[in-house]
């Protein structure tokens, strides 16, 4: 698994000590048993955009948090403009000209933009003089970098894309020379991504250094000058972007030929078990997050849903599983039509034979504090076989959990062990086991292999295919295009809350899905918005 392919360094050696904006040398960091960063050495050139790619959990964010002073490395050096520095906290990082745009914005929503910019950079005990000065300086920055932000608006009232610009502006106002962006496009619409990239180019033109953390290779190819690949905490490859390809990056990221092919027979679709017809979801803010969703899933097929995170897939899963009410349209389960505002909820869904493996395992599917056996009956505690009259029969529950653990290879096989002490893969297998055990007619699965180790991935995939072959209907949502393509018999693509296209497994190629995910017509090219791996 560790066939490290370190290619020649992408840059020529420095002419002077000051050639690198930032150097991380031999950074090592452990969190208990997790080795988050292994002897990482990275060098960022000034006036460049440096991409940092890797799968979830590859150690990208930890590394950058060390640079920003959130964590302290166990060993290793950090050099800024050739000088070794010690970064004990964010304050030190800011003082050294390092700025960070976090994935979850660090903004005070009840403050105006200007107040947010001022925070920590007030320049004196009173605000009045600082406000006037800040306004002048920020307007200057806005002109220089083409960042348009209404300074007196409340942050809470601004769209996400503008909030992100506030974050960038904040970093610049604090004097950032090196700007780290953590998965900045995860929350952006394609046009907003375009705007962001224009801003990053301006930053580079003005001599700033940009570090872009992402797992979207298309973005790396479109905007960066250099790229480093992290896998399992270590740098496994470095390239000059112009000299590499998406395929090469993808291979380096996963450490194997990106081959997730699952052996499966051709599908034998039966009757439609699950259907949605014109379903709309309106969230608390009044925004329609799922628009006119229409789909069918037949017995004996896996329908995959592809899309950039946050384009309505989560809402789709939540509506179908009864977690979220829908505003209009109709959902049909095994021939029974459900109207909006009805009594369909997760309990009702289970009664109707709909099982749900949710996207966010720790938040929804297990209770970390419970022993595994109790997490293993979550959602089924009302089931007849588990109780004697009013009493939950723990002996039976424990025995049943032990049996599930055996069948789904959950390790260690200890029903009394706290759920949180199992690894992500084993937790997921436990959840899968619980949901499949009831032999549901319909299985809704979100991100089945997120944070799951390779061995468990293959196992989970095999189970899903086996369930399909038993004539069940499976709807699969995944951010991993490979997974979608490997498992699905049909593929739906979502963008901006809508299902924008459908492809059969045979027609599906990465390119076609990618451009549909980006919301561009298949003929349009050159767009960078959207995800491909």
């Amino acid at each position, binding site marked *: 698994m560790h066939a490290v392919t370190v290619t020649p360094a992408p840059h020529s050696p420095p002419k002077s000590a000051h050639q690198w904006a930032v150097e991380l040398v031999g950074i090592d960091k452990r*969190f208990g048993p997790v080795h988050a960063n292994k002897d990482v050495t990275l060098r960022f050139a000034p006036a460049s955009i440096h991409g940092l790619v890797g799968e979830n959990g590859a150690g990208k964010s930890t590394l950058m948090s060390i640079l*920003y002073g*959130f964590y302290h490395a166990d060993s290793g050096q950090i050099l800024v403009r050739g000088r070794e520095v010690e970064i004990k*906290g*964010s*304050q*030190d*990082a*800011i*003082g050294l000209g390092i700025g*960070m745009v*976090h994935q*979850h914005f*660090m*903004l*005070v*929503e*009840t*403050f105006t933009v200007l*107040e*947010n910019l*001022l*925070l*920590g*950079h*007030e320049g*004196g*005990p*009173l*605000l*009045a003089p*600082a406000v006037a000065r800040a306004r002048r300086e920020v307007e200057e920055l806005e002109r220089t970098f083409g960042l348009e932000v209404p300074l007196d608006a409340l942050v809470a009232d601004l769209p996400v894309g503008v909030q992100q610009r506030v974050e960038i502006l904040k970093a610049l106002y*604090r004097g950032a020379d090196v700007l780290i962006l953590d998965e900045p496009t995860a929350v952006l619409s394609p046009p907003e991504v375009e705007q962001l990239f224009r801003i990053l180019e301006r930053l580079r033109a003005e001599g700033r250094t940009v570090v872009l953390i992402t797992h979207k290779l298309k973005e790396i190819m479109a905007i960066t000058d250099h790229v480093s690949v992290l896998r399992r905490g270590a740098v496994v490859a470095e390239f000059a972007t112009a000299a590499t390809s998406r395929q090469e990056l993808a291979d380096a990221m996963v450490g194997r030929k990106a081959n997730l092919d699952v052996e499966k027979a051709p599908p034998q679709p039966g009757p439609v078990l699950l259907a949605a017809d014109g379903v709309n979801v309106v969230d608390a803010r009044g925004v329609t997050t799922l628009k006119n969703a229409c789909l069918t899933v037949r017995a004996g097929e896996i329908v995959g849903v592809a899309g950039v995170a946050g384009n309505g897939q989560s809402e789709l899963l939540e509506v179908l599983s009864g977690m979220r009410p829908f505003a209009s349209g109709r959902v049909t389960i095994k021939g029974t039509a459900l109207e909006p505002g009805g009594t369909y909820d997760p309990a009702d869904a289970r009664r109707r034979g709909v099982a749900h493996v949710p996207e966010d395992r720790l938040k929804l599917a297990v209770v970390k504090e419970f022993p595994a056996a109790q997490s293993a009956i979550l959602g089924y505690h009302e089931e007849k076989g588990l109780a004697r009259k009013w009493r939950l029969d723990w002996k039976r529950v424990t025995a049943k959990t032990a049996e599930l653990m055996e069948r789904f290879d959950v390790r260690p096989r200890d029903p009394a062990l706290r759920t949180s002490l199992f690894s992500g893969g084993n937790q997921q297998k436990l959840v899968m086991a619980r949901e499949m055990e009831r032999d549901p007619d319909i299985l809704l699965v979100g991100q089945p292999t997120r944070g799951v180790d390779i061995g468990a991935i293959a196992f989970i995939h095999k189970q899903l295919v086996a369930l399909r072959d038993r004539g069940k209907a499976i709807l699969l949502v995944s951010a991993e295009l490979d997974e979608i393509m490997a498992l699905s018999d049909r593929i739906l693509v979502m963008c901006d809350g809508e299902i924008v296209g459908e492809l059969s497994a045979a027609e599906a190629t990465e390119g076609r899905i990618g451009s549909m995910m980006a919301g561009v017509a298949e003929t349009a090219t050159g767009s960078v918005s959207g995800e491909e791996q």
Partner: protein
Amino acid sequence: MESYFWLLSLLDSTLRLAAPLLLAALAGFYSERAGVVDIGLEGKMLMAAFAAATTAAFTGSALAGLLAAIGASLAMALLHGFACITHRGNQVVSGVALNIVAMGLTAVLGNAWFEMGGRTPNLPAAARFGEVTLPLAETLRNVPVLGSLYYELISGHNVLVYLALVLVPVTGWIAYRTRFGLRLRAVGENPAAVDTAGISVPALRYQAVLIAGLLCGIAGAYLSTAQGAGFQNNMTAGKGYLALAALILGKWKPVPTLAACLLFAAADALQTRLQGVVMPGIGEVPVQLIEALPYLLTVLLLAGFVGKAIPPKASGRPYVKER
């Protein structure tokens, strides 16, 4: 004219009764706007009232009493900070604990030291905060309406009443016009934003909690050495909780909090005046209803039946850096 003086005297008592509430509510303002829930206003006040009365009894100095009160209250605040900020304990539980400790400790120490069933000795005038007659009050006393208003209502309070009132605009100014205020409000809404701006979240919260201690200290001293002339068992009698209610009713803003304190104090003043009064058509006024009014109002407000109070977003949550 008689009803005018009745009104003046009602408003006068309102001011006196409002002052300790206001001081405690402002204390709560600093703590809660920084994201630290303060159920312990009551206990800090009680401890401070006891410290003030005891010190004033021994030294004969109201000022020494005030300083002791502040010291005792700060110690409690520090303990609250230690539990909630340093050890990320449950803020409500810590507040409850401090209230109960204060209730027990003041009674035990008072009994042991003075052997008067928990009371402290009656303080002579010199050991209390006396009434301040404002300039010209005597001269203007006989000017109809405005003169008597000035003499009866505005003049003739002790210095802590004026201090409490002045602290309202001062607090507003600090919260909205200074660097400290900006950071204070920020840390109560999104501590991560403060942390990533290179500012220490614990240091900021400790400052806020200590200011709350300072103000509760003054409030406590007011009870035992300005309004009263000595300490009695459990003399706060829920004023700390009432202040908390005023802060909520004031939606965590200084001026509306002042208004809520005045409202509660007026209800209190009215209630003593209406004891046993038979109103035409209503019969005897149920004073208990007036007594319960502040709490009822707060419940209704929090439930969104009367307006809506939204607490600082991060309040009650210990700050832990995200992994």
